[in-house]
């Protein structure tokens, strides 16, 4: 991957709020034309990262490059080329949704009117309601239409589907797929795996202000563990099961997780106790995430 293909690149990014470290040496790389899933539990630093990339917050350390420029210094030039959907959309109480879309679009240098109309239709959005009358999901739709009706080459989406119903989530997935076909690069943050699983080419997982895993879905699956449920002929010796993870022993019943490269060894070990029944669940990303998220709690607790 050469540097000029990188649309977003941060290196050791640090952001402090007083004494609290929100970003603790974050390295994020997003290549051109990909949909990059940005996953992490609540409070891991997703929105802070995005706000630094948008030049809304100034980093305390490290470097960030966005579309080849400095997100803090080159705000106006860079923002002509990107569109943003905030995680928590606040609209102006006295303005209708349609007015808000046109305001944001105009500030960005104009909207594609045909696409604006089409998106409003597909998202079933009433553009004449005033700010406060919209539900959370509908406020989200206003921001999504405003962002996607432009021809931005980079879309930065901060938990864009929070509040959307499943039907609208499908529409969103379609629309995002179309944007990708047009060649847009997408940074899609979320705390729910299934939201990014269908669209993302690559994923980065953030925990406590650092990227802890990054790679394609296939690479991630390779890191996920297989779950094994076994009923043995005799009770196992705890010390001998040390090669397995998350071991739970209930008499002769054993439940454990196993790394992809350790399945053979685990089978050999368990067969030694006389296998009476065996169930193997394939590696799921869900379990990988839960594992990473749980570790986050440990990390937070240790601090």
């Amino acid at each position, binding site marked *: 991957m050469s540097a000029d293909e990188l649309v977003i690149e941060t290196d050791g990014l640090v952001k402090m709020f007083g004494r609290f470290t929100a970003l603790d040496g974050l390295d994020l790389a997003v290549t051109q034309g990909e949909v990059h899933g940005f996953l992490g539990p609540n409070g891991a630093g997703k929105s802070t990262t995005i706000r630094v990339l948008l030049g809304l917050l100034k980093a305390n350390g490290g470097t960030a490059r966005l579309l080849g420029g400095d997100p803090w210094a080159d705000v106006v030039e860079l923002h002509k080329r990107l569109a943003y959907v905030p995680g928590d959309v606040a609209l102006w109480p006295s303005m209708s949704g349609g007015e808000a879309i046109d305001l944001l679009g105009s500030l960005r240098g104009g909207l594609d009117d045909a696409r604006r109309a089409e998106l409003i239709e597909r998202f079933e959005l009433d553009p004449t*309601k005033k700010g406060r009358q919209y539900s959370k999901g509908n406020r989200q739709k206003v921001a999504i239409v405003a962002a996607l009706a432009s021809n931005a080459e980079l879309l930065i989406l901060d938990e864009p589907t929070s509040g959307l119903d499943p039907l609208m989530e499908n529409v969103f997935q379609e629309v995002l797929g179309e944007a990708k076909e047009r060649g847009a690069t997408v940074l899609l943050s979320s705390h729910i795996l299934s939201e990014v699983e269908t669209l993302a080419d690559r994923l980065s997982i953030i925990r406590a202000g650092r990227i802890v895993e990054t790679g394609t879905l296939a690479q991630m699956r390779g890191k996920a563990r297989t779950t094994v449920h076994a009923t043995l002929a005799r009770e196992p010796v705890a010390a001998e099961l040390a090669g397995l993870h998350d071991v739970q022993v209930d008499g002769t019943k054993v439940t454990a997780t196993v790394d992809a490269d350790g399945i053979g060894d685990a089978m050999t070990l368990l067969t030694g106790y006389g296998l009476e029944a065996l169930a193997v669940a394939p590696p799921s990303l869900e379990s990988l995430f839960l594992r990473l998220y749980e570790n986050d709690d440990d990390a937070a607790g240790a601090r």
Partner: protein
Amino acid sequence: MNAPVVGAPLLLRTSVKHEARSFAPWIAIATVLSASSVLVYPWVFPTQADREGLAALVGANPALGLIFGPAFDVSTADGFNAWRTLALGGLLTALGAIFVVTKATRGQEDSGQAELLASGVLGRSSRLLTAVSMGAIVSVLVGAVAATVTLLCGGGTEATLLLCATYTASGWMGTGVAAVTSQLGAEARASSSMAVAIMGTLFILRGFAYSVEAPDWALWVNPLAWMTETKPAVENTWWPLALAVALTGALLAVAFVLQARRDFGQGAIAPAPGPARGSTRSPLALALRLNRGTLVAWTLGFAVLGIVFGYFTTAITDLLSGDAGIGQILASGASTPADLFGTFVATVISLVGIIASIACVQIVLRVRKEEMEDRVEPLLATPTSRARYYASNVVVALGAALAFLTIAGLVIAGFASSADIGVTYGQAFGQALATVPAVWTVIAVAVAVVGARPHVSIAAWAGVLLSFGLTLLGPTFGLDDWVLAISPFYHVPAIATSTVEWTGLAVVTLVGAAFVAIGFAGFRRRDLATT
């Protein structure tokens, strides 16, 4: 317990605990106002001659009466305190109550907090009851703390108690008004603006009625004048307070009836659907759009203020000729009638300027509010630079100041030039324009605070507070000229007098420009608020 108010005591206890900090400034300001009067009086005006001098000073500038009301007797510390603080202390208490009530009703509904509460075990009227109780409590606290401290500082017992009781009674009336407007406005801001406008109008009308020696009915139809009619330290009449209590009760009854009829989160006036396409397409257009209601209301307000103050200038000759102190000043040759009138017009227009600066500082503070409510973030994520966004709002604030003074100036000049006081139309209107740079400098303080130190955005009011305190209260404290000169309004030349000095105003303008520069530098460098 009565079903409609289930849960109110618990909610009240929690709310008071939560909001107690926001009560403090109102209590502090009223207390400082009142206690400082009795403390400084014997010190600044030690002799009988000094006190007569004060009476002459007050009499010589009837413009002061517009704000402070009539000076029944300033020859005692308590009488001085009553004159100086009755009107202001009452208005401030009422404003405090208005903000507390509006925040606890519509403010909570707008922020969604109320929904959490209303879904709990809470009667339909509990939240309003809690809100008005908080308004009543903050009013009582203002009165009680101010009375205690003033008595400790040596205030006379009955005069002090009555004076501070008028603060509380004014606060209660403010509570009643806010309880009603909270049921009417489309959102919290509209509700509180409505209540503030009502109290502000009554306040100005009271000062005007006393200053032009209006007939009695003009006093008795104005609830704020009831407070003045208690005449603390002079007659100590307690019964007008009962009128205030009765009015508060009536207003609350109306509020509870209206509250039972309206939908949650909406005022009596339902918002109409908006256009599907927007014409607001630039940061400047947005700033104008967001402040539209405020700008229209204040514009009307300044036209009315121009009429009130302008009419007042036509009455000046009568007012001055009836005053013995003025006769002495003129007879001694210390001042000519032309100078006296010129200074008078300048003072009246300074008052307009200070009121204009209040309106414009609000516009600047709106930037911070928008930022706190996450509405600036999506704008700055577009190719809109921070400087451009901030400049759009600052331009609206500065432009509003110019517009307000122009409007009031045109009207006042019309009256003044027809009043045969030796002030031409051009001079009076020029006076209004000359006051603009001073107002801009006060606004510039807010620009600096919101731009560079937004965490202490309350400090944005520092310029207003200093100008008000020094320009209006300063002379009665016998402060030195160099202290008075901190107020930008001190440097506005009185154009219709024989000596016109522009240097001070130029310096003031430069200071203002420096504040604006600080604000922009800060706004460009700092983090945007995150929630």
